[in-house]
């Protein structure tokens, strides 16, 4: 029977009664020599992702987050047995413990920022443009212009990040930034926020938004600290 992992906890704790996980399987707590984990038993080692299953995974992690901040596992972490899970986690025990300490008492809040992009002339792909006498030079100039705009977009995203970061200041314990990628005008900034500061955090962003009505930001959360588990895995 395969074991599906939802999250790791500081200490063994039983999930709420009747909490169901992926495909309606019952979730149970496991004691991993002091650390806790919430798992459920699956018939297969392979879990094909779907929006429904992603929601089920998140529902279990969210239930864990209600009482104490867990380290959320990424979707699809399946091991062959409880013993295997124990072996894998005991190898990383000290890293897991320090990660749990880092997120303890905090949640993840996420700010999505719309990065204003300069108006861009479309690339000339017409036959005349492609075969005209000056087309090669013109084409390369356009490509250079697009690349310049992408660099500008990244720089603008960086400025926005710094503005948001200074607005929330000491309210956050850590931040994780995913800059605007090419072709997208959304940048994502995740913060690790102590639970007692969530309201102050929201207010700080509300104030920032009121100060600059042109700023388009969306706040979501609280989440389990999905963005703050890097460097723990394989």
């Amino acid at each position, binding site marked *: 029977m395969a074991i599906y992992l939802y999250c790791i906890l500081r200490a063994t704790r039983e999930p709420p009664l009747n909490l169901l996980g992926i495909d309606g399987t019952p979730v149970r707590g496991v004691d991993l020599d002091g650390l806790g984990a919430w798992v459920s038993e699956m018939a297969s080692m392979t879990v094909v992702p779907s929006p429904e299953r992603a*929601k089920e995974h*998140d529902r279990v992690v969210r239930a864990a987050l209600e009482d104490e901040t867990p380290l959320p596992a*990424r*979707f699809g972490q399946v091991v062959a047995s409880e013993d295997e899970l124990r072996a894998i986690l005991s190898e990383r025990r000290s890293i897991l413990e320090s990660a749990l300490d880092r997120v303890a008492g905090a949640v993840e809040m996420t700010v999505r920022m719309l990065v204003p992009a300069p108006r861009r002339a479309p690339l000339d792909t017409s036959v005349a443009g492609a075969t005209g006498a000056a087309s090669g030079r013109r084409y390369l100039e356009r490509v250079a212009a697009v690349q310049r705009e992408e660099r500008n977009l990244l720089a603008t995203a960086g400025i926005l990040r710094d503005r948001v970061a200074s607005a929330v200041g000491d309210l956050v314990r850590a931040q994780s930034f995913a800059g605007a990628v090419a072709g997208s005008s959304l940048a994502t900034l995740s913060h690790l926020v102590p639970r007692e500061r969530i309201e102050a955090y929201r207010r700080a962003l509300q104030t920032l938004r009121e100060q600059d009505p042109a700023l388009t930001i969306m706040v979501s959360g609280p989440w389990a600290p999905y963005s703050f588990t890097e460097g723990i895995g394989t």
Partner: protein
Amino acid sequence: MPDYIAPTRSHGLVDILDRVLDKGLVIAGDIKINLANVELLTIQVRLLVCSIDKAASIGMNWWQHDPRLTTRAADAGALGSGDVEKRLERIEQQLRQLTERSGAKRRPSTSTE
């Protein structure tokens, strides 16, 4: 701006997928094949769901009108081509009338020759 800060915004499907499929603790080096499969599939699911949501939010909904992608659009397409057929019929009728009229004019003149 209260809408953007409202807690109700917090648990949208795209947000969930973005986290659950892309972030979080990865353990287990010895189930790499499964992980590789999951990774491939998750990326596909995420792109699909994210892109539909994002596209719809900025008003792109061409797939709702493309006859090859939706049966509704096929009906709409049929209606559209029906319009074209009607117009064509009307034009052909006018053309017939014109040729008949000019033919009627020409006939007497040829008879005089």
